């Protein structure tokens, strides 16, 4: 009679990871790329052919060598192997990103969720504080810090973190406010659950999705910002193998010694891209209820 496939009461089984990745090739690709980057970062000392070149070593006789079998990415103005430096640079970039985003979530998420869930005065105060921090441009703050302290990766990280967390507070607040309006939160109140428990066990977990998606997209942003700061001389200093710094150092020799700029630049691009794609893929995945042809 009919070959109709579903009925109202059909229960969807939980989706195994493999099937998840198969139906979402974008996510699979991005996840693979990110995994590769993390591995490179972790195993840099083992993979890099010339680990010392990521540090203080100099080789005056091997400067400006083009890419070859011995030096896959060529060498830089001081004779250091660019490939090893780029590999070590992965560590720095990922660490900076992790630190900034970790801090932003640690501070912004609780503040934002509290503001969104409580509303009223708490919300107003917290949001005004956020606004103050949002008024600081990362660049100006780093300039100030560089003037007071010495420019370094650490200080650049601090500058970026201080200006980055308010976005997470805003985002968390918006999501938390909308979650707090849903019937199941009213049900928690009606049940007699304490506000703290309601917020921590119910509002918070339901407010995470946009934050997680934003976090993965932000990795690219943080890396670009830190590279920009280094490029301006406000962040990493030589001999730190930071990608932005390498681009800065290499730009004077472009285009003849093109590899100095191209490879670190490509690394920045690839990393930012990988995490952006991951964010996109995660967004599709984290809310699995898709409405297909509801009748």
């Amino acid at each position: 009679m009919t070959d109709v496939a579903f009925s109202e009461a059909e229960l969807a089984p939980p989706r195994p990871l493999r099937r998840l990745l198969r139906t979402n090739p974008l996510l699979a690709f991005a996840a693979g790329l990110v995994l590769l980057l993390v591995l490179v970062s972790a195993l840099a000392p083992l993979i890099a052919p010339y680990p010392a070149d990521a540090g203080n070593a100099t080789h005056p006789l091997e400067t400006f060598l083009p890419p070859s079998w011995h030096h896959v990415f060529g060498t830089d103005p001081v004779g250091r192997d660019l490939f090893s430096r780029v590999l070590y640079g992965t560590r720095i970039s990922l660490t900076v990103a992790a630190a900034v985003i970790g801090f932003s979530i640690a501070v912004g998420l609780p503040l934002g969720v509290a503001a969104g869930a409580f509303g009223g005065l708490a919300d107003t105060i917290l949001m005004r504080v956020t606004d103050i921090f949002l008024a600081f441009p990362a660049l100006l703050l780093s300039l100030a810090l560089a003037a007071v302290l010495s420019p370094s990766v650490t200080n650049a990280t601090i500058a970026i973190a201080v200006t980055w967390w308010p976005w997470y507070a805003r985002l968390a607040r918006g999501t938390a406010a909308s979650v707090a309006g849903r019937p199941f939160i009213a049900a928690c109140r009606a049940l007699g659950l304490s506000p703290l428990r309601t917020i921590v066990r119910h509002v918070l977990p339901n407010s995470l999705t946009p934050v997680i998606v934003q976090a993965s997209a932000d990795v690219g942003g943080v890396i670009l910002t830190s590279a920009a700061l280094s490029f301006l001389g406000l962040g990493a200093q030589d001999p730190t193998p930071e990608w932005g710094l390498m681009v800065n150092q290499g730009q004077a020799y472009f285009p003849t010694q093109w590899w100095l700029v191209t490879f670190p630049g490509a690394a920045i691009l690839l990393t930012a891209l990988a995490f952006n794609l991951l964010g996109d893929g995660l967004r599709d995945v984290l809310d699995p209820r898709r409405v297909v042809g509801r009748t």
Partner: protein
Amino acid sequence: MSDALLLEVRDLVVSFDGVRAVEGVSFEIAPGPFGLGLVGESGSGKTTIARAVVRLLEADRGEIRFLGADVRRLGRAALRRYRQSVQIVFQDPDGTLDPRMRIGAALAEAVTAHRKLPRAAVNERVDRLLHEVGLEERHRRRFPHQLSGGQRQRVAIARALAVEPRLLVLDEPTSALDVTVQAKVLELIAQLRDQHALAYLLISHNLAVIEQLCEETVVLYRGRVLEVGPTEQLLNRPAHPYTQALRAAVPDLEPRVRASAAAAAALPVRHETARCPYYTRCPLAVERCRDEQPLLRDVAGRSVACHRAEDALAFAGHPLHLASGS
């Protein structure tokens, strides 16, 4: 003897979004098994009343007494205890459960909301609750989106029962469900009422549902009580023109042509003026209705807020009037 009553609401006034949603509403609920129906259309204030009773909303004025104690003045600890005695089930089965929590965990949380129990005892209670509402142990591991609407509503009922309340407020519990599912959930409510000697406040726009489950009915319109009395009498011989219109408007399964209801309703506007709220739509309206707000008075065994209630009763059989012609 107000201590014998489970819930007593007197002259409740509630504002919502700057508008007076509830205007001087009073009703009583006896200890279970007992059902009071609150029937009204949109803007009647019925959901606002439900929320005020469980203190999800604060009323402006009036009394809400549970076993004699004034619910509006409860301190924090007493309020928690009140929350153990009165529970609410919401209309929307989709938003009523935390989408990130498994059913078993959600029910366990409800069970332990007011007392600490060892894990085994909690699990045993959760299983028992699931069985009571017609679900099974295997549903414990499911997430809400893996259940149907009717099943989710059952879980919502189970969650409300977990704290062993004496009064259940049901806000349109089946309106969002398919009709076959609705019938089963209503059956469930009837069963639970018998098993637990439950008392409930059932809010619905559907008169047939109210008739099935409630001994007494309160008819609300724009925040005021227009008629209140024993359900059977109220539905079979409605004394207020609005109740009559409601009754006539309920489509039944007899394919008959009905006289059309009153002309298009005015835009919902809150009038603080002293006139009958139903004036603009009432076929029996006279000048007095515009100038003087009718108060509840006893007519034919119930309370009716209508100047012309006796005429309304008399006209009930008239073919040109909006009667239920049966």
